[in-house]
């Protein structure tokens, strides 16, 4: 593969100087055919790779969702019988167990995502606003706050697994042994509490990203705005409401969307936290689909579920962008 990348990267790179040997033209000026070709050549490597790794496999995945791809056919899945919309019917038949389980998992995921994104945004924004002014130790604190985001997912989540252990974990030690909040040690990785465990880990890992983005966004707010507001006698709270939050709107638009998509599709966190069969209370859709395909060997139904998930995300993203992006530059999408 390295050869492929090298070759395609190469073609993009070398094509450029050949394009206008010594010509001193502005890049935006309309020109001859080779000038038209240049942007496409620059895009080519990215395009080929996206095609190869994302789009073509996605098309194959959609193709698979119309097949009866169980263990009897996976060896030669070209010969697997077409099943029409059967896989989809099974997935959305909410009165039958498979559909019911999918719906449950979907609702859990929606609830989890909303809470996680909300908390990440809230904590990240609050921290960024509190740290807008300089004070002693601000740089250190900022570095510290970015640590959860910088840690590799596996290392961070496995640490939480250790902390959530029933017998030798820190969480039970603090809540039960030291603070006596519970009358007996709780379970965090199985049963109903697993939802809160998952949420905690997700927020812990995710809020620094919101913090980082909002912090960057705050730096773009001109200081004069605050000075003017202060002269008008606006207090801190009013400055926050009248200047800071409105100025952050475009930043938040992208931030919330990105957080939403990442959280909704997150596989690594629940997988490392719970293993391949997640407890019902924390049965996120990504792990659910993984289980539907890899653990029960029904890749057709698994693909159908993924396609449904993709459609849902497309609709949500589309509606979200429509509702929020009025007046935004299109080029920034």
């Amino acid at each position, binding site marked *: 593969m390295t050869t492929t990348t090298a070759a395609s990267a190469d073609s993009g790179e070398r094509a450029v100087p050949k394009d206008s040997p010594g010509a001193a033209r502005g*890049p935006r000026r309309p020109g001859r055919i080779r000038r038209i070709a240049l942007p496409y050549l620059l895009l080519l490597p*990215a395009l080929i790779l996206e095609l190869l790794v994302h789009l073509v496999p996605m098309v194959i995945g959609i193709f698979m969702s119309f097949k009866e791809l169980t263990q009897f056919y996976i060896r030669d899945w070209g010969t697997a019988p077409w099943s029409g919309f059967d896989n989809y019917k099974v997935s959305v038949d909410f009165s039958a167990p498979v559909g019911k389980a999918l719906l449950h998992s979907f609702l859990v995921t929606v609830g989890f995502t909303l809470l996680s994104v909300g908390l990440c945004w809230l904590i990240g924004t609050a921290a960024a606003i509190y740290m807008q002014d300089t004070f002693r130790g601000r740089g250190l604190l900022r570095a510290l706050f970015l640590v959860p985001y910088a840690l590799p997912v*596996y290392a961070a989540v*496995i640490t939480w697994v250790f902390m959530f252990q029933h017998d*030798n*974990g820190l969480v039970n030690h603090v809540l039960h042994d030291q603070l006596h909040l519970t009358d007996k040690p709780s379970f965090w990785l199985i049963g109903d509490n697993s939802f809160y465990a998952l949420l905690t880990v997700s927020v812990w890992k995710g809020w620094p990203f919101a913090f980082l983005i909002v912090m960057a*966004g705050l730096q773009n707010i001109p200081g004069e705005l605050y000075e003017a507001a202060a002269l008008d006698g606006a207090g801190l709270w009013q400055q926050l409401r009248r200047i800071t939050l409105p100025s952050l709107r475009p930043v938040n638009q992208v931030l919330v969307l990105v957080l939403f998509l990442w959280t909704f599709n997150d596989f690594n966190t629940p997988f490392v936290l719970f293993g391949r069969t997640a407890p019902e209370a924390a049965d996120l859709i990504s792990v659910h689909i993984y289980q539907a395909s890899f653990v029960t060997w029904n890749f057709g139904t698994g693909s159908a579920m993924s396609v449904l998930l993709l459609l849902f995300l497309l609709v949500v993203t589309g509606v979200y962008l429509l509702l929020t992006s009025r007046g935004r530059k299109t080029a920034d999408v």
Partner: protein
Amino acid sequence: MSSTAQTAPRASKAPRSPMAPPRSFLWSRRIFLTLLTGFVLVPVYVMVSSSLKPLADVSGKFRWLPSGLTIRPYIDIWSTVPLARYFVNSLIVAGAATVCSVVIAVFAAYAVSRYSFRGKRVFTVTVLSTQMFPGILFLLPLFLLYVNIGNATGIALFGSRGGLILTYLTFSLPFSIWMLIGYFDSVPRDLDEAALVDGCGPLGALLRVVVPAAIPGIVAVAVYAFMTAWGEVLFASVMTNDTTRTLAVGLQGYSTLNNVYWNQIMAASLVVSVPVVAGFLLLQRYLVAGLTAGAVK
């Protein structure tokens, strides 16, 4: 150039309000930041302290302070699983994916930022929309694709580091392109126009003018790409074998043992985290600057 000039004053920008903040604000800030620091630090403390504890300390009730310190776990981790090999694999995979991803993203973002052409919007929307694909949807198809490419061309993609590099670089590509488009847009066009007048080709303008001016953005993108590749579990677990396994998968080796050696797990987690966290913290200044000028404006 221009953007470093732009960001320099920002970094040391004046407090937003000339008035001293009221006491209540200071107190709420103190409380909030203290609580948050605790929340952030506790797992880090657990990781560090547990990695220095003897096995008995991590198997019994949790204790804040170790009964004795030992560096034994740090010695053992290298022999229980071939950690060194996984480390090298991860470095190669994440490093190569980062370099390729950045180079490709720079070209693509330059094209989108500086040229208007048919299909531009389709391209940006399509590339960005790949962010919403559930990984599970294309895990198996991608695997099949790699195998078939291997059969047809003799290029071994599956099971090789190359296949993994290819996969990871496309994971970070959409976000990188999007961020760099924003960053390049903030580099004044007059600069590359001037370079073109001086006799540089478009590539010369890109390499000599735009790229140097966009260093913070490029570093930010590189950091993001590296982190994405360093921590990925799902694709690595299916697409690697014994010789090409990466850290994220290899670390699971510590829990398939007969005993759960939490102290070794924590030590190994720490060892694999140090390079990324250190790099991240060193470069975070760029990251903020890059995001400020690029993604969030």
